[in-house]
């Protein structure tokens, strides 16, 4: 009894969805697994690229901030190139472009790495995010308060110790708000994946629309997924900021005074 009732309800819902509702939500629900896999791929490449790019950017930012005699200029060229050009074209350059060269096609890297869209995307995204991260990390290293450095020197710290214990910890903290933007931009940028044959979130939306000849459903579903991801990321970062930047927060009474003045 219960069984048949629930089935009629489902049939009723399908009927509404197909004929009455502007969006066929039952159809989307039937293919929700595609979107989940797409979200997984989007997250996988974005997170890996952010981790690898982050690791790359720290030594580059240090070299830029301290104006290393040999490394400063090449790193500047690298960041200028990756920050000044579209991620889409960078990805095309590597994924479609490298096949132009005989030597690349015959090298040992070709088969497992450079001929695969996944690897090409990971390489390009990593370099791209490393470019952006290097520059704002350099900025926050350069704005280390002079007093902190003087204090470290006065304590007799070696340059390495000072970097490790004083400069980097405070620079990372100051870079955190900019980094949360970079993470969100990277997630936005990951839509490029769907242009090089990969089934990311947008790819799933495009697949659904193409298969059933729809105009909205796939894109709107992908859009909702992206919004949820961005919401989670922003929430995560604001918690992280609260934890890491707790010493910079204004005292409660002061915040009240500022708010009163602004209002």
């Amino acid at each position: 009894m219960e069984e048949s009732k629930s089935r009629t309800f489902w049939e009723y819902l399908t009927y509404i969805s197909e004929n009455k509702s502007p969006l066929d939500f039952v159809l989307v629900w039937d293919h929700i697994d595609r979107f989940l896999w797409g979200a997984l791929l989007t997250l996988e490449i974005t997170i890996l690229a952010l981790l690898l790019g982050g690791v790359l950017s720290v030594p580059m930012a240090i070299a830029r901030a301290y104006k290393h005699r040999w490394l400063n200029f090449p790193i500047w060229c690298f960041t200028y190139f990756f920050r000044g050009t579209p991620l889409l074209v960078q990805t095309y350059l590597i994924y479609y472009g490298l096949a132009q060269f005989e030597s690349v096609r015959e090298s040992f890297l070709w088969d497992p790495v450079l001929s695969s869209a996944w690897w090409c995307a990971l390489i390009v995204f990593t370099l791209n995010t490393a470019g952006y991260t290097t520059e704002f990390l350099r900025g926050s290293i350069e704005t280390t308060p002079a007093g902190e450095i003087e204090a470290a020197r006065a304590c007799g710290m070696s340059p390495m110790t000072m970097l490790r214990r004083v400069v980097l910890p405070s620079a990372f903290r100051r870079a955190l708000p900019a980094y949360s933007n970079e993470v969100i931009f990277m997630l936005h940028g990951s839509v490029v994946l769907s242009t090089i044959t990969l089934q990311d979130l947008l790819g799933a939306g495009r697949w659904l629309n193409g298969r059933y000849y729809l105009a909205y459903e796939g894109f709107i579903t992908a859009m909702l997924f992206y919004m949820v991801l961005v919401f989670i990321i922003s929430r995560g970062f604001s918690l992280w900021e609260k934890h890491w930047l707790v010493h910079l927060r204004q005292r409660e009474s002061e915040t009240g005074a500022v708010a009163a003045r602004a209002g």
Partner: protein
Amino acid sequence: METVWAYRGLLFDGTVVTVQLAIASLLLAVFFGLIGATAKLSSNRLSQKIAGAYTTLIRGVPDLVLMMLLFYGGQQLLNEFGELTGWWEYLEINQFTSGIFSIGFVFGAYMTETFRGAILAIPRGQIEAGIACGMTSMKIFRRITWPQMVRFALPGFANNWLVLVKATALVSVIGLHDLVWNASTAGRSVREPFTFMFTVLIIYLFLTAVSDVGLRWLDRRYNVGVRKV
């Protein structure tokens, strides 16, 4: 390299389309940004809410998704609406228009934040002084708010513009014959995709460098009265 030179006309046409698209979307973005900033700063709760939803939506959704939604979905919506009301027969949104609208809409949200910050940076006393002198709100905007707002907004504006120029590349995905589309088609047909894509990157770097010069000029112009330390 000779092949790139042989296709210079095609690449040049593409560059022109890219620049036109970027400038048209910038104008639209400034328009949306001014409206958004006004709405965010107004005392009307509803307009604050709407502007807040707008900036949150844009921050949450990648531009290519909106672009595709507008290009495919917007087209259908427009025609369904036309059919329903009988106001128009069949309309087609081309790639250029949906590119302008989606990029303009997306960057309008970033401009909203930039302009809002810039307006908030103007000392309140100056606006009160304008009111005390009997200026109309239009005159206050023209003589007090705008000149200073531009100065405060310029760094953020410059950044938005540079990001916007790069975002135009995405319109090639929905088939606009811009620089990227032309170059990748040409590159595929002569089997030299790397050379062509590399040329595209150089052209983008060139566009960035040119806009840097222009932005620096604007910066000097609007900072004339500011004392430098």
